[in-house]
């Protein structure tokens, strides 16, 4: 999922200062899942804004703000509703969803979150980055564990010499991912996969903006 972090509420209020009527849109996918921009947070922010003199014209949180048809369809059109009733939209969806809103309405759209990463969730509170969407997946050869996303230097030929007692030198609160890769491949009897010299990555697969078009 895409994880987001809600901006400080006073900062959001500051960003919305030029406007009076505000429509709040959250997202039940990533933002909701990581409890920083779902329906619950959208109502919380709306409450704060009301206390600070704003008029809340609506609060909605579709299951997928990054899907145009969920925002705007003949049966249900959140965007039209927001546009006709408000001076501005506050979006708690990820950067993708927020842009999709912005390019389909004529009123200003303000984001209330910072989009963080593509990650996984554990125990309903730990979220970790697992993928950087490099477009050229290597994890079949690294025990299903991505060194591109989970090593700050994105090393693919083995660890650097900087790990201190098994911890990453860049962030000692996380283990060097190459220890995990080693133990996983060891248990699969596949350590020899790491003997191959991996050639330089082709970064063309990482040049944005990228597109995917499905065949009819």
């Amino acid at each position, binding site marked *: 999922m895409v994880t987001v972090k809600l901006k400080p509420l006073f900062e959001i209020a500051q960003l919305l200062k030029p406007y009076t009527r505000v429509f709040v849109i959250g997202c039940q996918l990533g933002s909701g899942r990581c409890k920083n921009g779902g329906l619950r947070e959208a109502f919380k922010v709306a409450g704060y804004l009301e206390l600070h003199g704003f008029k809340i014209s609506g609060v909605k949180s579709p299951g997928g703000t990054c899907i145009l048809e969920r925002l705007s369809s003949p049966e249900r059109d959140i965007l039209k509703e927001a546009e006709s009733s408000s001076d501005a939209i506050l979006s708690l969806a990820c950067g993708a969803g927020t842009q999709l809103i912005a390019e389909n309405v004529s009123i200003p759209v303000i984001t209330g979150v910072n989009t963080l990463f593509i990650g996984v969730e554990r125990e309903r509170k730990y979220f970790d980055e697992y993928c950087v969407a490099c477009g050229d997946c290597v994890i079949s050869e690294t025990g299903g564990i991505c060194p591109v996303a989970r090593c*700050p230097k994105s090393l693919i030929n083995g660890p650097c*010499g900087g790990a201190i007692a098994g911890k990453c*030198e860049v962030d000692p609160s996380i283990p060097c991912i190459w220890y995990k890769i080693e133990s996983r491949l060891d248990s699969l009897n596949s350590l020899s996969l790491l003997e191959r010299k991996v050639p330089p990555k082709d970064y063309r697969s990482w040049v944005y903006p990228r597109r995917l078009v499905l065949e009819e």
Partner: protein
Amino acid sequence: MGFKEKVSSGKFLITAEIAPPRGTDWGGIVNSISPLKGKVDAFNITDCQRSMVRMSALSMGKILLDKGYEPILQLTCRDRNRIALQSDLLGAYALGIENLCLMTGDFTTLGDQPEAKPVFDLDSVQLIELATTLNSGKLLNGKELKGSPSFFIGAVFNPFSGPYRLQVLKLKKKIEAGAKFIQTQPVYDEKVAKEVSELVSSFGAVPLIGLLPIKSLKMANFIKRLNPSSVPDSLVSALEKVKDPARYGWEYTLDLARSISEFGRGVHFMLVGKPQELANFIDELNGKGEG
């Protein structure tokens, strides 16, 4: 005889490390190493070590050459993509720099400009392979060079980092990619020095064991924080007892260098420290001093 020839001659090698200045005044650094002229076989020039901005290592390398020293240009993957690396390497060779020590490099956030964008387009293995490709007269994309370099390529190894099996695998990849000599992180134990020398030699490269004289208990603890298993407890407790830890640390390092000269191929002083004393020591190792 240049560094490359010395390495193949089997001579016991001594390299040392200097950092370019933070600024443009390089004179003091060159003056400070003058006692080591003709004694240290080559000087590594660090590339914005610990991610702190210094004058370009390439420029410093050219200055050393002009002053009659042989440089080993260190180049990291931290700040340059493959286009800049190839360009800088060709430029270095055109200026007469033949020796390289290639590595991944410290991460940007550990330095004094942590806001910088990290590059890491290549890793150390790929960078070594790139230098080997230039040596063969080609760019990474296969295009022919007009005038090709003949670099003597080195790399680094940290015997204290893990996971050990993968460190060894990567060391092997570096040597297969073209590294002819390997300089290590500081070692404080003869047994480790011996094991590493054997390991590097078994892959076909020449080991230069890193030595960094400890000046104080504080410094010992700092190194212990970076590489917990590298500093033996006996060294720490000795430093606690002695009156002059700097003297003790220096003698300890020289003793270790003497032992390495019995079985190893060379040492790499990661700090010039006391140039005149280091010069005297090198004379002693070479059998020219008073002992």
